[in-house]
């Protein structure tokens, strides 16, 4: 569905933000794109949406180069960027003006999404807070029923009930033919939603694994037991004990602790993939 090959991009000629990225994504999954600030997550989403021109390589979506910005492609991809603007008009008018551009737009889905966030459709976009605008925009984005939904830091600006609603919102949106890519550095907001984890650092993808594959190879526990901690691949100290990442030797699946995995990946970019092949990290 989405094939990224040899993608290189930099805002200046010899300073790449992304260097020879290769990725392939299939329909029916939620991809978590994680990385520290400045890793190039937003840039990668812009490139996927066709809003930037690669210096090298291509982004093919259903066989079409997204940079060509064909209406067919743009009508099947929706980007909810971290910074966005909405016109100062009523929401109903906004929907009336924008929905005709998305062939699979569903008013029923829009109503359901707004309900989930506790919003009505009688809103004026100019009178909303940033968090409310985000909820409204995400509700509209999902109602467009595009096969690819790109979300850049979607939980920024959301209150606690909003984040909880967001998780239900995403879980309810998944279908077999839809792919959602969520870029964030707030890993706790989305940890249980993901089907696939991508971790970016230093201009490239350092981890590209399905969550089930990670769970098969790794086990995550919170413990104070020093014996366990000594055998851990990585651990982060906490108040109720340390969060640790161990090899999964007994075959039991545990929930992925994204913070520990992310911290390990960022600190061991060369050896992160090796641990899935039973190699000993350096």
């Amino acid at each position: 569905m989405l094939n990224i090959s040899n993608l290189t991009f930099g805002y200046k000629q010899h300073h790449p933000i992304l260097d020879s990225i290769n990725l392939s994504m299939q329909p029916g999954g939620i991809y978590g794109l994680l990385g520290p600030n400045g890793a190039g997550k937003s840039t990668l989403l812009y490139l996927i949406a066709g809003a930037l021109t690669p210096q090298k390589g291509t982004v093919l979506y259903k066989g079409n180069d997204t940079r060509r910005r064909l209406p067919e492609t743009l009508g099947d991809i929706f980007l909810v960027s971290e910074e966005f603007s909405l016109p100062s008009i009523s929401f109903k008018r906004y929907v009336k003006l924008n929905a005709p551009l998305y062939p699979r737009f569903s008013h029923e889905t829009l109503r359901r999404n707004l309900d989930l966030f506790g919003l009505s459709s009688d809103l004026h976009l100019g009178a909303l807070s940033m968090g409310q605008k985000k909820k409204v925009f995400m509700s509209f984005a999902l109602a467009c029923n595009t096969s690819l939904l790109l979300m850049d830091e979607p939980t920024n600006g959301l209150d606690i009930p909003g984040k909880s609603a967001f998780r239900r919102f995403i879980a309810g949106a998944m279908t077999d033919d839809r792919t959602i890519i969520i870029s964030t550095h707030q890993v706790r907001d989305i940890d249980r939603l993901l089907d696939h984890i991508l971790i970016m650092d230093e201009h490239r993808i350092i981890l590209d694994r399905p969550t089930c594959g990670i769970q098969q190879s790794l086990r995550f526990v919170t413990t104070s037991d020093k014996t366990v901690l000594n055998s851990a691949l990585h651990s982060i100290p906490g108040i109720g004990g340390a969060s640790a990442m161990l090899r999964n030797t007994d075959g039991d699946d545990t929930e992925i602790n994204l913070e520990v995995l992310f911290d390990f990946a960022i600190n061991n970019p060369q050896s992160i993939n090796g641990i899935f092949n039973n190699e000993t990290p350096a």
Partner: protein
Amino acid sequence: MSANNQTFSLHRLSACMRKEIGENSRRYLLSAAVTAGLMLLVTVSYSAMHHHESMELYKGATEAFSGNDMSELKAFNPGTQISEAYHRYHAMIRSWLSVIFMFATSFFASTAFYSMASKEWRLRTLTTPASQFEKFLSALLISVVGGWLVCVAGWWLAEYLNYWLFSMLTPYGKIFRPDELGPLFNGYQSTFLSMLIFIPLFLQSLFFLGSTVWPRLSFPKTFWAASLILVAMLFTLKAGFSIGFDILGRTGIPPMFLMDAHTYAYLLSGLTLMNYAIAYARLRETDVVRQW
């Protein structure tokens, strides 16, 4: 053209235009109101300043008829019999209106890519599901064709409101309706009409192109850039022809001052098309983050 056509679909074009106008209706209405208001201000204030004079002229024109006979007055054909002075009065108003027309149509064209003025807006525009050609055509139809329509409507409104206002004030009960005055500029029709059409068209294309370079504050920036280029070109041509004058003993006048209306029309049409072609190429190359 079906929606499956990836270059042009009437459905997408009209949706694009509705979106642009609907989301920015206040800005467009304000610009149209300011344009019509300026035109009205010029016609009414000029008429007010010259009201007494124009009434005297009208009186002079109508007293040429025997005893103010109403039937003769009704048969009076202002297009052919109106006095030269009275005609000059209207020509002055129309010259001022022409200047506003040129500025206003250029201003409308300079807002063509205002939707690209910030990163967030640019992203919204670039990811709107329409082809580059449809986005270009939508901007062209709204800001260039729409600009003309607004300015023509403003002109018409200004002349008729002026007529209506001063026909109420005149003791003679009649001043000439704008459509009774015949062509816009009697005597110089081909030259003036050609200039009135082709110069604004060229200026519009220039400001349209300018809005792809400077989406924000496009009008003043394009105005100054174009003025500098024009002055530089004139000096270069003048210098070149002064040298030519010394060598060849000719006039030393740049050829643009010696061209006839048709040559101007061809030249300006070519430059206009070139500006639109460059604007389209720039739109195709535009990214969400400006790198130029």
